């Protein structure tokens, strides 16, 4: 008998049933089912009885009986719709009261949440910006772009661009295309205003389809004719203002440097943010004319390069994009048949997908999915400590709230009511914080836009109804995230325990979770501090690194087609100029070009970076020649010699540098002889390892004159050089110092330091404020203990140490966790990307730890000393 009693009906169907019917209504039904179950047990096996039970549950759930019962009990206590407006009203009233009651903590919470949410707001506003790009396009749902995927066995690259002739062929062969717009990038005209002033503008070449497909409104001019004739140009309103200070300029002629005269045929109204970015548009057939006049390179009829031209399509309403892509694929496949390795294919991309795609060679502005994701991650990283703070403070204050909760429960409040109340309280708090957060958002918006490259163009970060709505949702989300844990905790409190006078049970303090959260916050702060220290060190290291060539006092002047011999003689007349050399590129940036070089004996070829220089270059930049000589001064017309670096000599198996001399290699169709070997130097930025490299000599390739200066007054020397430049050329004098150039190539590094430092500062402020709150509340609750200790003779310092001990321990744990994590993160992932890097030293770690602990001691010390100083009479007199 006792055996039978132990067998119970299966649990989960019962729960399901109870949940479905809301317990109170179904009491007799579950009782009935239990009874049947036990009766069945006498007749059949437990398994069959259980099965029957499940079946019964199912039948009951769908039965009319339960349905009517549910209907009947709907408006009585205990059902889901029990939350009424009045209850919410009461909750919000209580919430405001309790916020007002604990002003310090509310203030700390509001500050932390405001600061923590502000980065999230930035990310959200950026996201809203990106998702509303091109919203003004009336045809948005029908506009598509042809993208090109190039798969050359090594890697697969998807370009936003496509070949120039593709548009024409598609028009002939594909059906369902209403309109095609062909756009060519790279129309960046310099408008000649007067003899000395040139205004540069950015834009595209585009055919008449452009104005039909896209909703750019012409304020003046005829949209059908504006881009029809060669050398027609349309300006945006603001570009017209920039050039003429007025916008009624149709019919005027613009002189574009190097290209000729253009007639203004239209003015485009300034447009909202689009993925296209232009100030001017020239007619597409201008390209053909320019090619005929040999003013630009011929590309219009080449299938090969896919980097300059963009094809946009306006499809018919019901046209499937795949069909068009298939036609495009077929066309392109007839063009690249000779190279087996190369696979080129086309896809069609809807205009609304453009901003979020990370394609290569984007036509205008690019945002990309990855960078936004990283941004959101960082925002979350800053938001989390703020939420932790709330949780921490709420639990630390639990003792004060516990009685209220207990009483609520006794008078009929259920767990979910308590949960609801607590979450609502947090949501109210986070919505108040939102106001502060929006102020912070507006304050940091500008500097944020400055931090990211091209920020002002890609983002508005304006407060629109849509962003405000998103912010509001975000605040609610934050509130729920911060409040969920304390709410669950409060809703589970046992009313008997909380109402018993000695409510200081161990369960209430939830010490372990609070400790965990503090450790997490400070570990995060430590990661930020240490990260900034490491980045700064790497930045300094890169600035001072010996690249293997002279970088101070070298001025690189853009040749701009000036006869270099004349320039050199002119420059050498200036006394401050020590020496002048010529080169095709500037070392140390990303723009090194490369060729495939064939070994004389072996058959495979190697990729080799190259630079074209004159005889004086190696001397001028003080690159160390370890064997052989530099190029001869009077080079013959034919290229004969190369000077290689050590790595090259090694890679080609030439043995020692001296053995490498007079060996030859095949470059293209030329056989070139090694006449010198230089010591390895960093011709690429420090991220890259030094690879095979050679100097070549070909006067037609020179782009820069490298002038070594020895001058006390740089500005005066520069103006001297500019005036002598103006005598031999009517182009603008353009010169940069090599070390400035190198520093500029570190810009991404610099902005990373800034962003990391900024986020770090926020995380630290939040963590410290949170710690402050927790220290205050724990000191308060131990006031009497301290009083008693003091009476028994403890000194102020003793008491302060006693109070601080736990916290200092926690921070120490945080440091112990964070240091190896940061070290690992930076060493393994981040700095891996940089070949020549500063190692993470003891100094950075020590400094970061000292900094963190100084902050912590200030916070803890200020509070604990305050409590320790209180006269014990004050705290004990009520005893």
């Amino acid at each position, binding site marked *: 008998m006792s055996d039978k009693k132990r067998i119970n009906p299966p649990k989960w169907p019962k729960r399901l049933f109870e949940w479905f019917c809301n317990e109170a209504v179904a*009491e*007799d*039904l*579950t*009782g*009935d*089912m*239990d*009874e*049947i179950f036990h*009766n069945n047990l006498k007749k059949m096996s437990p398994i069959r009885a259980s099965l029957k039970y499940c079946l*019964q549950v199912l*039948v*009951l759930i*769908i*039965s*009319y*009986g*339960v349905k*009517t*019962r549910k209907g009947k009990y709907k408006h009585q206590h205990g059902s889901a719709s029990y939350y009424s407006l009045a209850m919410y009203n009461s909750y919000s009233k209580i919430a405001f009261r309790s916020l007002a009651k604990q002003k310090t903590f509310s203030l700390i919470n509001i500050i932390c949440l405001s600061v923590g949410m502000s980065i999230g707001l930035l990310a959200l506003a950026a996201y809203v910006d990106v998702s509303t790009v091109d919203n003004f396009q009336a045809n948005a749902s029908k506009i598509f772009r042809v993208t090109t995927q190039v798969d050359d066995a090594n890697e697969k690259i998807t370009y936003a661009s496509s070949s120039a002739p593709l548009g024409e062929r598609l028009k002939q062969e594909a059906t369902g295309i209403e309109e095609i717009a062909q756009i060519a990038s790279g129309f960046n005209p310099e408008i000649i205003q007067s003899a000395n002033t040139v205004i540069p503008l950015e834009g595209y070449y585009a055919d008449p389809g452009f104005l039909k497909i896209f909703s750019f409104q012409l304020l003046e001019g005829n949209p059908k004719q504006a881009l029809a004739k060669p050398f027609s140009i349309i300006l945006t309103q603001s570009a017209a203002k920039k050039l003429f200070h007025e916008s009624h300029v149709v019919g005027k002629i613009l002189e574009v440097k190097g290209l000729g005269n253009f007639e203004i045929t239209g003015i485009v109204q300034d447009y909202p943010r689009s993925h296209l970015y232009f100030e001017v548009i020239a007619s597409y057939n201008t390209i053909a004319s320019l090619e005929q006049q040999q003013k630009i390179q011929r590309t219009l009829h080449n299938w090969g390069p896919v980097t300059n031209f963009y094809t946009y399509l306006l499809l018919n309403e019901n046209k499937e994009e795949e069909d068009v892509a298939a036609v495009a694929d077929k066309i392109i496949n007839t063009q690249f048949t000779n190279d087996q390795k190369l696979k080129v294919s086309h896809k069609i991309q809807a205009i609304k997908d453009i901003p979020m795609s990370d394609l290569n060679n984007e036509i205008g502005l690019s945002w990309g999915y990855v960078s936004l994701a990283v941004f959101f991650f960082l925002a979350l990283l800053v938001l989390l400590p703020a939420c932790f703070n709330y949780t921490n403070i709420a639990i630390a204050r639990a003792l004060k709230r516990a009685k209220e909760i207990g009483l609520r429960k006794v008078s009929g409040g259920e767990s979910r009511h308590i949960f609801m109340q607590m979450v609502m309280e947090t949501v109210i708090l986070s919505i108040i914080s939102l106001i502060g957060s929006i102020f912070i958002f507006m304050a940091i918006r500008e500097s944020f836009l400055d931090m990211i490259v091209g920020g002002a163009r890609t983002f508005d970060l304006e407060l629109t109804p849509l962003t405000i709505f998103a912010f509001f949702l975000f605040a609610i989300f934050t509130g729920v995230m911060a409040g969920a844990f304390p709410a669950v905790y409060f809703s589970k409190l046992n009313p008997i325990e909380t109402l018993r006078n000695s409510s200081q049970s161990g369960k209430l303090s939830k010490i372990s979770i609070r400790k965990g959260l503090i450790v997490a916050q400070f570990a995060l702060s430590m990661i930020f501090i240490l990260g900034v220290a490491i980045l700064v060190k790497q930045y300094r290291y890169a600035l001072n690194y010996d690249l293997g060539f002279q970088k101070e006092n070298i001025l690189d002047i853009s040749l701009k087609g000036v006869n270099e011999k004349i320039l050199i003689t002119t420059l050498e007349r200036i006394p401050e100029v020590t020496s002048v050399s010529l080169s095709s590129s500037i070392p140390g940036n990303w723009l090194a070009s490369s060729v495939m070089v064939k070994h004389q004996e072996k058959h495979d070829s190697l990729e080799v970076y190259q630079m074209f220089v004159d005889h004086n270059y190696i001397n001028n930049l003080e690159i160390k020649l370890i064997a052989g000589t530099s190029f001869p001064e009077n080079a013959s017309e034919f290229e004969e010699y190369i000077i290689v670096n050590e790595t090259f000599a090694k890679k080609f198996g030439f043995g020692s540098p001296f053995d490498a001399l007079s060996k030859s290699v095949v470059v293209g169709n030329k056989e070139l002889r090694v006449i010198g070997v230089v010591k390895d130097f960093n011709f690429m930025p420090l991220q890259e390892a030094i690879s095979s490299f050679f100097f070549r000599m070909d006067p037609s390739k020179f782009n820069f004159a490298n002038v070594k200066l020895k001058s006390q007054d740089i500005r005066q020397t520069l103006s001297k050089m500019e005036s002598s430049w103006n005598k031999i050329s009517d182009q603008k004098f353009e010169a940069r110092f090599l070390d400035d150039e190198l520093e500029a190539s570190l810009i991404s590094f610099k902005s990373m330091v800034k962003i990391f430092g900024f986020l770090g500062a926020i995380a630290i402020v939040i963590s410290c404020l949170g710690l402050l709150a927790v220290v205050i509340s724990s000191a308060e609750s131990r006031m009497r203990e301290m009083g008693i200790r003091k009476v028994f003779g403890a000194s102020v310092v003793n008491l302060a140490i006693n109070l601080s001990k736990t916290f200092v321990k926690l921070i120490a744990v945080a440091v112990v966790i964070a240091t190896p994590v940061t070290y690992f993160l930076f060493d393994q992932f981040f700095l891996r990307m940089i070949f020549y890097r500063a190692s993470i030293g003891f100094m950075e770690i020590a400094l970061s730890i000292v900094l963190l602990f100084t902050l912590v001691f200030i916070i803890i010390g200020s509070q604990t000393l305050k409590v320790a100083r209180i006269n014990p009479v004050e705290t004990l007199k009520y005893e």
Partner: protein
Amino acid sequence: MKGYLGEFEELVLLTVAVLGDDAYGVSIKEEIERRADRSISIGALHSTIARLEEKGFLKSYLGGATQERGGRRKRYFQLTYGGKSALHDIRNLRNDLWKKSKVNLALDL
């Protein structure tokens, strides 16, 4: 059709009457199963009961908590006046029909 009483409904009403003070879910179900020799599901039974309650033929009250059934209370059912009169109506109708039958309904052949 408020007064309409289905066959199964009539059966339930009469069973409740038979059980007197002990008419609750399981007892009704077992009584019907025993007497009519048919298996009925608890879902169907409670649906019918719900309909009868709606029509006002049955009323229910919760019994006291007992140790059996895990302390869950039983819901007892009682005939209302309406229920009784419905039973009368249907019996009268039947009797009337029996009486007026032109075929001899007696089974003794």
